[in-house]
């Protein structure tokens, strides 16, 4: 057989394709570390691990440290000698104590939010995963996820029209003779009330609950339920004894996510709770933002850190045991919990055995089973039968209605926000006619696009989101590569760092990074630069760089998770084939591996971009005076009570961007959804 010219070309070593600097650097490193697996692994791991340790973990210790700080006479912050008074104040239960009551309220409200989210999230996830027609599932799940990509500031703002009596919502309802409904809504959606705070937290973070539950419920094999029916379980009991236990892990994941997020919340209570429903986060933030409050802010923030770390470690332990197939985990953790609740609530009698002890006792001799003495057919209690009939006939409509109402609650407000950005009059609750004034402006009215702060906030948001998502993907790729390809001692640590980065409340991340930067400035950069003869101390000013560092830090875990999936799905025999055909390791990586995981890389960048674009809490702490992002701009107007359709216009931009993101992700396939597969 004749060799074709192309083959010849490929065989000629001189005709290698041009290498970029990066590729040739990589090749040199690969060659240098050939046979030195440990060294290579070190090079791969060093940057992501170092980054996460420095900007995620170390700052947490500084929070603890600064809890011991104090101000001297000249109002300079001192760390040494330690001053325990802030911690003493923080754990004080004296009548005038501030922190503990706030903490109790925060935990109570967070727990309530978690329970409400669990109940509602379960209903929605159950309907979508197990009741809705298969062809609707993707769409419904999309509808649940879409609001998640819209900055929560915008989403909270979007609910405001329902809280205002003069709003078109209520005048409309009244004019249709639905005054009762209007009163009901006004009674519940009242700014400054506890239920409004719980509702808002639930409303904003519900997807955290639904996503893991949906993934888990879709995996429950319907045949298991048939088996349960066959073994004598009614629908109700089959749910209780089969479906529910199978979804415990997802329930735990969702609950931890919602709980931790709620414990660290401060913007939500601030926006809807007024002064009456402050969380611990609000205290941390206010203390932090006035000079002299830093030690108190640190001491009380430590509570949030401790809760977060404890919950994560408990979960990691649980997940490990689950993975190892440890039978008793669920019955040890959840069984007693349920039994306790049952006893407390006075329902049911004895707890049922979840596993039968088989130790001890004489082995049973001849089997006693006989066809002749079979059980009498089961007669179910009337209520259980009735429940079954209801479940079978009406169940899907009830669940469907609940899901539909929730989805409407997600979307109608967002649509209203967009519509009112085109209002001709200065109102966000009554529509006076169509105009573009709030966008383009007119002589007596500044449009969004005439507002320099608004324009620069769009610019900053893009720059920050772009830089941080790219950086995060770079680090994430290294981490994901190491995690999927090597076994190493700090693998557990790396994974824990990822979990930590994913669930740590933004408040904590923002505060702790800000403290780290202050520390660096005061104790290291300042003295060092002066020591080297600089005329003025060099400082890391809060601004673009600090915000990018912050955003990169929370984007790395996201990127890593997405890329781990991509690396896992990638068929490694392709690499073997490439090397077999004569490609060296680096060539193989760049020509075979990289193109194949490209969809994952793009998803990770998009995901990071959107998260960063919508982010507010971390940005608030790190932006300093010079940087304003889109969500900051919106939040600033709302908290200064400058609520005009211009806020709607700005919100609409955030909304549009999210839609673009979703459209791209949908184009790229199911990858967006895979992130949340557990």
């Amino acid at each position: 057989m004749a060799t074709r010219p192309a083959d010849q070309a490929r065989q000629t070593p001189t005709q290698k394709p041009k290498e970029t600097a990066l590729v040739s650097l990589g090749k040199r490193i690969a060659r240098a570390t050939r046979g030195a697996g440990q060294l290579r692994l070190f090079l791969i791991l060093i940057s992501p691990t170092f980054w996460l340790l420095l900007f995620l973990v170390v700052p947490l210790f500084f929070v603890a440290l600064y809890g011991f700080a104090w101000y001297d006479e000249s109002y300079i912050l001192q760390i040494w000698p330690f001053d325990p008074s802030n911690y003493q104040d923080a754990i004080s239960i004296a009548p005038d104590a501030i922190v503990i009551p706030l903490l109790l309220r925060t935990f109570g409200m967070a727990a309530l939010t978690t329970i409400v989210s669990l109940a509602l999230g379960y209903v929605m996830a159950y309907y979508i995963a197990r009741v809705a027609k298969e062809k609707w599932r993707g769409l419904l799940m999309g509808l649940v996820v879409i609001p998640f990509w819209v900055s929560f500031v915008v989403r909270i703002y979007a609910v405001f029209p329902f809280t205002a009596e003069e709003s078109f919502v209520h005048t409309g309802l009244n004019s249709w003779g639905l005054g009762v409904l209007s009163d009901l809504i006004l009674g519940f959606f009242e700014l400054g009330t506890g239920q409004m705070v719980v509702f808002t937290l639930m409303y904003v973070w519900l997807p955290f609950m639904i996503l893991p539950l949906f993934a888990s419920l879709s995996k429950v094999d319907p045949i298991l339920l048939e088996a349960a029916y066959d073994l004598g379980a009614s629908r109700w009991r089959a749910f209780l004894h089969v479906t529910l236990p199978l979804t415990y892990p997802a329930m735990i994941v969702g609950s931890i996510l919602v709980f931790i997020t709620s414990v660290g919340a401060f913007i939500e209570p601030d926006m809807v709770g007024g002064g009456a429903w402050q969380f611990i986060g609000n205290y941390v933030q206010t203390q932090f933002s006035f000079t002299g409050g830093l030690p108190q802010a640190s001491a009380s923030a430590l509570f949030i850190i401790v809760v977060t770390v404890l919950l994560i470690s408990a979960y990691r332990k649980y997940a490990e045991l689950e993975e190892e197939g440890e039978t008793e985990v669920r019955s040890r953790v959840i069984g007693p919990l349920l039994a306790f609740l049952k006893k407390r609530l006075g329902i049911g009698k004895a707890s049922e055995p979840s596993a039968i002890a088989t130790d001890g006792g004489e082995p049973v001799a001849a089997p006693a089973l006989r066809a002749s003495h079979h059980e009498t057919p089961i007669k179910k209690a009337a209520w259980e039968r009735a429940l079954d009939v209801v479940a079978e006939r009406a169940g899907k409509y009830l669940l469907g209605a609940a899901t539909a109402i929730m989805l409407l609650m997600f979307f109608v407000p967002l649509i209203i926000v967009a519509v009112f950005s085109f209002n001709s009059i200065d109102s966000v609750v009554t529509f006076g006619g169509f105009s573009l004034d709030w966008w383009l402006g007119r002589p007596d009215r500044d449009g969004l696009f005439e507002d320099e702060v608004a324009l620069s906030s769009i610019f900053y948001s893009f720059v920050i989101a772009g830089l941080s998502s790219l950086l995060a993907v770079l680090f994430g790729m290294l981490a994901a590569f190491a995690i999927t390809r090597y076994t190493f001692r700090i693998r557990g640590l790396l994974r824990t760092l990822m979990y930590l980065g994913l669930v740590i409340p933004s408040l904590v991340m923002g505060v702790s990074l800000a403290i780290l930067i202050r520390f660096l400035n005061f104790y290291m950069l300042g003295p060092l630069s002066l020591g080297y003869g600089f005329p003025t101390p060099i400082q890391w000013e809060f601004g673009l760089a600090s915000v990018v560092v912050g955003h990169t830090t929370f984007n790395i875990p996201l990127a890593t998770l997405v890329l781990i999936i991509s690396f896992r799905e990638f068929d490694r025999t392709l690499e073997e084939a490439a090397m077999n055909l004569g490609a060296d390791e680096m060539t193989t990586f760049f020509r075979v591996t990289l193109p194949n995981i490209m969809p994952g890389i793009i998803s990770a960048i998009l995901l990071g971009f959107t998260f960063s674009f919508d982010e507010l809490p971390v940005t608030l702490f790190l932006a300093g005076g010079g940087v304003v992002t889109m969500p900051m701009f919106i939040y600033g107007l709302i908290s200064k009570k400058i609520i005009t359709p211009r806020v709607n216009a700005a919100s609409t931009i955030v909304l549009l961007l999210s839609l673009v993101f979703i459209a791209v992700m949908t184009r790229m396939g199911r990858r967006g959804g895979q992130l949340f597969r557990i």
Partner: protein
Amino acid sequence: MEIKGLTKIFDNTVNAVNDVSFGIERGSFFTLLGPSGSGKSTILRMIGGLEKPTKGKVFIGGREVTALPPYERDTSMVFQSLALFPHLTVAGNIAFGLRMRKVPKEAIQKRVDEALDLVELPHRKYGRRKITQLSGGERQRVALARALVTEPRVLLLDEPFGALDLKLRKQMQVETKKLQARLGITFIFVTHDQEEALTMSNVIGVINKGRVEQMGNSKEIYERPATRFVAGFIGEANILKGTIDRVEDGSAFMKTGEVAVRVVGETVVAGEEIFLSIRPEKVRIGTDAGACENVFEGTVLDEVYIGLASRLTVQLDVGPKLVANLQISDIGHTVPVGTRIQVGWNSTNAVVIKT
């Protein structure tokens, strides 16, 4: 246990089960045998109450249960995928049905142990294990124990050994059959494996396209297939189509193409169109053939070695092809392609089939 006129139409279009009726004696091992998609599982699920019949009735122990939900029926099912609960231990799985019946705790433990004994799993060792820690065969036993522990009147088994390897499968077949004989519970067993059906059952119902083709014991099904489908599905068969020419003294002659073949004449009348089924192992070859009632000359077209025998395809001079088994008594004995050969069979070894 009896079903009457059972019919299931899915989505108004797929007629999965069509007017199926049969009764099963208490304590017998009944097998539904049919190709994949023939409606076996659907019948079984309707008996167990997991599927609502479009038409027809189900009786268990003389009581109509058609409208009852599965949990109020005296049936237990062993699922094809086994459907063991992954969140429960072996003991927890077996106890499930008893817990649903609110059996007291101590009694549950005792009966779980008994059930494990029954399927020959040492309960000390297995009770606390997780389902994921079991081998295929062990899972199989747990599924069986779980279904039996509630002491059902009827045990429904839907291709339970489908996932096992051949050896384990044979072993489980023997054990299941023994267990059934010992317990005396009615077993309704579904399989597409004719060998499995023939070796295990008291009665076999052959299902095709949602209808019962034939009911009978293994021997009847194999030796007296009632339809062409049964003849072809269970074992192999040469099917000849023809018309009865004349009937005389208990024998009849069927004309197929240009030749007349002698067939058993008890059930046929002249002019009737029939099919004749001849098993390959009933076809004699070479010198043996000479003494048969029907003898033909032919050429060997193909020889396939199948271990116990050689399978010859012979082109008869008079038209049709015939497959015949050649017992290999001596190693190395072959019949090369192209060999001229005589084949024949006796009319009593060929079965007349009307449809």
